């Protein structure tokens, strides 16, 4: 499915944005393409709300990972993945939250317009997020990179796209 993925800094500024138009699938319709950043921006409200909940309401998400806050007590980053947090006209929106309050957020679409078939494979998406998070941390370790600045590295971009190809194509 084509996806629109963004890493959002703590000032609601985009650090990295990418659209994954997989060749075997259709890309976003143009009107949605323009809307994508707006949808993601609006969903930040929900992340803000969710990140402080100890017992998240799993009405949207079908993961059972528990709240983001709970994960502070164990060492794994299992619970950074917030699952499906929102949807817009049936396009699900998943998100992943780093401990530095950097938001990884993605809008999924099947590209066919038939939203009923947009299903998320939580495990795959979670793996994708975790690997991107790892790469983000590596980018963070670059002494020339300042937190919250846009990541412009073409290597980062190509690797994220590679990961997307690996995990998000079905």
């Amino acid at each position, binding site marked *: 499915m084509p996806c629109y993925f963004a890493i959002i*800094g703590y*000032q*609601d*500024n*985009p650090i990295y*944005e990418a659209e994954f138009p997989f060749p075997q699938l259709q890309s976003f319709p143009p009107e949605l393409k*323009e809307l994508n*950043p*707006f*949808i993601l*921006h*609006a*969903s*930040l*409200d*929900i992340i803000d*709300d*969710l990140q402080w*909940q100890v017992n998240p*309401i799993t*009405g*949207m998400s079908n993961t059972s990972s528990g709240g983001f806050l709970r994960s502070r007590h164990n060492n794994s980053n299992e619970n950074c993945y917030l699952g499906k947090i*929102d*949807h*817009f*006209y*049936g396009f699900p929106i998943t998100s992943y939250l780093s401990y530095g309050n950097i938001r990884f957020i993605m809008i999924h679409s099947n590209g066919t317009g038939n*939203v*009923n078939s947009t299903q998320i494979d939580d495990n795959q998406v979670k793996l994708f997020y975790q690997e991107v998070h790892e790469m983000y941390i590596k980018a963070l370790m670059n002494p020339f990179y300042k937190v*919250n*600045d*846009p990541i412009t590295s073409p290597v980062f971009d190509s690797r994220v796209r590679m990961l997307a190809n690996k995990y998000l194509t079905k």
Partner: protein
Amino acid sequence: MVESYSLIGPAKIRTLVIPIGKWKRAQFLEKLVLLRKRFEVRLVDVTPTEDATFNPQGFPQGRLMFDFETFLLEEDDMLFLHDFEPYRKTFVVIGLVAQGTLETDTLQELETRFPNAICHNLICFDEPSGLLAPNVFYHPQSSVETIICDIGRKFLEALSLYYSSYKHVTLRSPGAIGGSSILKLSLTRQPASVPAASALTRKISSMEQPNSSSIRRSASLKSLGLTNGYPDQQRAKARQRKILGNFQLLAGRYSDALTSFSEAATTLHKIHDHIWLGSALEGICISMLLLTYLQVTFHIPAIINILCPMRTESRSGSESNSRKSSFSKNAAESPRASISSMPPKMNSLESTDINLASLIRRISERILIHYEASLSHNIEFAPQLIYCEHILRILKFMTSCYNHESLDEIVLRRINADEFELDENEEKYHNQEGLFTKFEIYLHAQRLFELQLKLMDVVSQVKIYTTMALIYQRLKYYRKRSFILRILLVTTASHSESGALQDYCLNADRGLLKDVLDSYGVFRQPEISMKDASVCTWVTLQKSILSLCISIVKRLGDTEMVTELSLIFLQRFSHTITQMEQSQLLMKNIIPNFSKSEKWSYWDPFILRGLEITRLESNEEHLERRTIHTPSDDPSFKDVQVFNPFRQRLINGVTNPIDKAMDKPHEFRIGEGAQFEIVFQNPLKTDLKITHVSFTREDSKYVNFLDDLVQELPFVLGPNSIKTLHAPVSFKKNTELHTISEMDVGVFDLQPYSFRIAIDERFALASEGTDENGRANFGKFVFAVLPDEPKIEFVSSSLRESAFMILDGAKKTFEIKIHNKSLSCPAVFVDVGHITNVETGLKSDYWKKLLPDDLYEVENQLKELQNNCIRIIDKPHILEPNSTAVLQVELDTMGAPFTFKKFEILLDYSSKQTASDSRSFYSKTLKIPFDLTLKRTLEITGLDVVPLPETVEEQSDDIDFVNFFKRESEVGRVDASDYALLLLDLRNSWKDALEFQIGFENFLSSKTTLQTDHTCRTVIPIKKSLLNHKLLQREVPKLVANRQFVNPGISREQLEDIREKFWCREMLIQKLTCTWTVKGHANIHGKVDSRQFLPKVDSRTLDILCPSRKHTLEVKLVASETVVSSGTKVDVKALINSQRPRHTPDEIATFTFLIFDRRTGRLLPKSNSRVIYNGNLTRKVKLAKDSDTGLELLPLDRGEYEIGCSINSRVFNSIPVYIRVE
């Protein structure tokens, strides 16, 4: 508009208020507010009506609630819903009649204009007159409350009439009335499945029996016969029942309405009339809520218990559990399951036992299921509007309850009065868990996005979006709200026909647009505020929303707003748009509108990047600002001569070069031309045309551009460039100090605007409290304009080409002529001086590494040059305009070094009238340079001092010094040991023979002729006593005071040595005089400056001239006989003469006699057989006064002996005693 989505909206009577006659908008709105404040009428206050159905007495606690509106926006479009939901109809029309405009046919006209309303009323704001119909009210006469009560009564009467017309009509669903034009519910997901009919029917029928008795309570209800008949009949009757419920809600009979709705719902459920069932269930919710508001207890209808089974729990009990369970996938919830879990005692539920808010929510879920279930039907389907509005109503209800723990009075009142904003007290509870969590409400709101909202008509869309925006705002989901508002804007923008609508939702001050733009951070001011500039933003969003807003306001024709937004676009996001877009914004949106209003100006604060000046007339002499020192100032103190270890660092330290450059004022004279270099910056990707440049009004008093500037304008700057404009200026008025910090610049033929000079960008945040918070570091240009000055010029001198040759030591006098060129200003001379190349060639720190005697030498020379070498006789004080003066200059080369080659006469003058500050004035300096060649004449090439031989008298007579001694001895006794001889070698370097004469104190040589290039030696007698100890002890004098010497690293002894030699030389220089005349030219004469030629004296000379300079004691040995025979006794006496009174009275020294063998020069041992003596050789003597001591010697061996002595083994006598033993 939003008000229509209140949950209790269906219980409100839609009332249209219209103005009649001439009203001012504000006045009319004032009256409207008056009405709106009293929207609620208690039934107990309403006079009873005759008809039983809606008689207010039937339920005196009830209320009539009016919903005063001023427009009929959707009346006709919604006509198909009037049968289904009759509350949508506008029942009442109230005409507000302005003063004096009431006419008899006004009421009739109102009725004809609004035939659909059932109750027409007039409220006159006037004294009662003329028309006295029952529907006409006079305001000041009867209070607003009474009027509304009366209108309420009229409405109830009319309503019963209106209802009676419904009694025998077969009610059809909206789908049946509207046909295909009705938008069917368009879900983006699979609709809920249809409940299984058979199971339900069974259940319902089984529970009908116990209920039937209660249904038959009301007489009027019997006629409906709900429980009998065929399904079609049953359906019709149940629908009638539901309609009745709606009317009862309007009439305030809430408990009757509850009964009607629940009966209707029971039947409708049985016959699967989903859409009507949904509506009936909603009616039940509203009735229950209103009854709770009125604090009337009621039974939960059985049908609710079936459809939404619940446990009897106290309100505060484990709510969260029940809520949670209800949250599981609602859409998939099957009615079948709920029936199987039906509780046994369904009738015993009292209103106080349940959590009403939660129940309403669950009923709402159920209603939605039924609406969705109706989709499978061709006619009996739920229109999307009904579905949406229901969601919105419940959303609003949930939001009202949000962060309240229970349905307390505040919430109920708020729901009732339809107040949506939180007051401050409630804000405190924001984080508490309320009846519904934020997320629950949000999830409910998301249901709207399962629908294809785009398919609905614009009005409905706008209504939905605005309501959602409000709800998000209440939940503090500001980003969601912004998103919804954006969708709203896109929606309105895409419907070009809805211009009026746009105007409506984007009211006059464009609050909504500004709100959206602000929420996306478009109004941040990175060009002004440092803080905003440092914040990262999502430019994609900002750009997109901004272009959307521009297109909307453009369509609205609001040029001002278009300009404002385009300006923002260009100013803050120019880096994200292409050149094409930029020029379009500029040419289409900004520039045409700029000229219309004066409030617009060029937007970039960085347009003016610098201001520099170039002087056009470079040969203009320099003006110096001088300060008159008062006596209290210390003029001699010069900072440079005090050692300051930090000075070096100050020079090398980092200073701000910009400040330095900018702070130093440039000085100009009135009328002087100069060229300003004005640096402009163009941030645009298109050309920037600068059409106007001028000084501000304050600045233009002093300086103005010449007309040539007009030719330069318009000045075009290429894309993204910085370019300099050269503009000639002239200065108009004198000023002490003027600062230009801004200039008026106009671009694109627009109104000029003042811009400050932005030197560079600022990156660090200014500390708090300072008002300078802008993005730029501003510069300034400082200059002073001086008034007219006199101008003196050098006319001529008596020398040819200002150059001459002079013999060393000679004098010369010449004249110079000067002229004051100015025709108006007299020149007042401040100072007339001169400077030579010797002075200018010196470094400022020449004194630092010199020894004291060398320094004296150098400074003495400078002093000589300054004071004696060049003298100007008749110094003038003032030179009148256009007058000439002659100066006499006397040059004396005596004392001038051979390096003296040039000198300048300096004339400092001023007009003295400049000084506004009396302590300072401006002065000019006229320099008149001269060249000279100094030719060597008589030189002293060598110097030697020898002791005077004892036999002076024997010398021949023609020697000068012998004659001198002879003359001296005639006067008195001459002791040869008092004199020494000074031998001077003189050389004639001039091309002619010179005749010279040397003098030393009272010695004067005879005139001697010296041929060219010849040298001769002259002998001069010097009296030794000229050098005494006191003179030698003096410090080397310092000619310049207040210098801080750093120790040059010489020891005290060396210093003493320097001192003694210095004074010795000084003595020689002072006493020695030498004059010369060129042989054959008596008028060419001069003096020899011995200081120039005399070398430093050496120690030997010093020893000769002052032999005892190191001794504090003088010992004189006297022997009784000098030639004795062996064995003869000799007495030797030592006279100790204490020369200096520096010895302490009790100081005792060791005195020792020393006996040498003169031939070998060896000291004889203390005990020897050659010379024997009595007593000790060593003895103690007192130094306080002159004393003597003696020694008796008995020489035994023959030979020559030398007797000496020493005091303290340090001081030895100078003249020994010799004894020859024969």
